[in-house]
């Protein structure tokens, strides 16, 4: 079943993007070389960037539609976003970062949910620290927890492992796989690394130079080893 249908166009300076794809439950990978426009696409899904034309439909409702002028602001889309650099709030503790989404949406406190996610991501020992004192891998796990605790209907990942070295990448991937299998939240996962996507993706959308050039299963990653060199 299709949960997300994206059909957008955007011009940024000399870069023109025109992308169309659909995503179902599971992890849809946006795969392609750096500069292909993958981040631009997820920013439009999150509502941080407004497309020039087209529409974005999630779960049967329009998040964006240029024709009718519908544009749901990011804070009302209910879409969690894990950024490449984590973007934890430096003035808040890990616990306050994790709690931020709940506070902003006014949901009641849910100790069970917090405990579940803290255990899933193994971040119980970090709760009273400041983000500045975390390692890259710890920071990304907290960022994943923060996005999960807002109870997202959809999760976006933008190169969540790109800022980590090899060892830390291997440290995070099992958590993400567990998340995919346990949470039931559909995900869109941006990466230019085929090896990473072989672990996590259930569907692949190949993006190059602002266009979707192919859609399919993990077999697409085989033909695309050239991108590995980047």
């Amino acid at each position: 079943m299709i949960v997300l249908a994206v059909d957008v166009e955007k011009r940024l300076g000399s870069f023109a993007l025109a992308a169309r794809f659909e995503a179902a439950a599971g992890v849809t990978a946006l795969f392609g070389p750096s500069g292909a426009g993958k981040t631009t696409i997820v920013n439009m899904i999150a509502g941080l960037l407004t497309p020039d034309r087209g529409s974005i439909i999630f779960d049967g409702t329009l998040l964006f539609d240029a024709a009718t002028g519908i544009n749901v602001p990011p804070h009302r889309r209910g879409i969690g976003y894990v950024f490449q650099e984590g973007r934890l709030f430096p003035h808040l503790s890990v616990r306050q970062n994790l709690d931020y989404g709940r506070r902003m949406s006014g949901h009641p406190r849910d100790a069970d949910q917090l405990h579940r996610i803290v255990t899933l991501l193994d971040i119980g020992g970090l709760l009273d620290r400041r983000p500045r004192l975390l390692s890259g891998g710890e920071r990304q796990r907290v960022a994943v927890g923060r996005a999960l605790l807002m109870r997202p209907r959809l999760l976006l990942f933008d190169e969540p492992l790109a800022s980590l070295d090899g060892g830390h990448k291997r440290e995070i991937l099992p958590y993400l796989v567990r998340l995919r299998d346990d949470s039931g939240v559909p995900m869109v996962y941006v990466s230019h690394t085929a090896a990473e996507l072989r672990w996590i993706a259930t569907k692949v959308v190949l993006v190059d130079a602002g266009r979707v050039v192919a859609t399919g299963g993990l077999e697409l990653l085989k033909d695309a080893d050239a991108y590995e060199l980047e």
Partner: protein
Amino acid sequence: MLGLSPAEWTAIELSLRIALVATACALPFGIAIGWLLARKEFWGKTLLDGLVYLPLVLPPVVTGYLLLISFGRRGPIGAFLADYFGIVFSFRWTGAALSCGVMGFPLMVRPIRLALETIDRRLEDAAATLGANRVLVFLTVTLPLALPGVIAGVVLCFARALGEFGATITFVSNIPGETQTISAAIYTLLQIPDGDAAAGRLVLVAIVIALAALIASEWFARRAGMRFQGE
């Protein structure tokens, strides 16, 4: 106490009250204008920018005179405020607070604006995806991150307000117990024979207050900075 006469204590109390009220009233405007200048592009931005910094470069007497003809009892703004809100500035301590606030305003806006310009706006995007509307993003992310700049602006404005002389004396004169601040009192004492000793005491008081404000601001700024460092 401390060899200060009641009149001198009155001048000190008045100075502190005027500077505090001036700074407190200027702060919301300082944050709003700093935000506008840091974040928005609009018609007349250069003009607003110039207007904000004008009191810094104009002779204080000119600023005081401009306040007198606009906020005085018969000035267009002063008459309006007096008739409809009962707020009177001329020859009142409130007028001294107004002139001090105006004179301190550019010093307040500048660090706030710079702090807002250096904030990583991607953190605001992150807050929006977590469900914060624009007001909440500002209150929970933007403002706390700009706090060191806000503190610097508050201290500079307070110091300027405490030392303001020219604009204040032009606008609301030099009335003991109403508009006579430490600066004005020192000036008055120096005009009379044998006033030197009293003037000297007030000079010492001015130095102590200025140093205390400086140390307090250092302490606040360090605390605010420490929060980001992970203490």
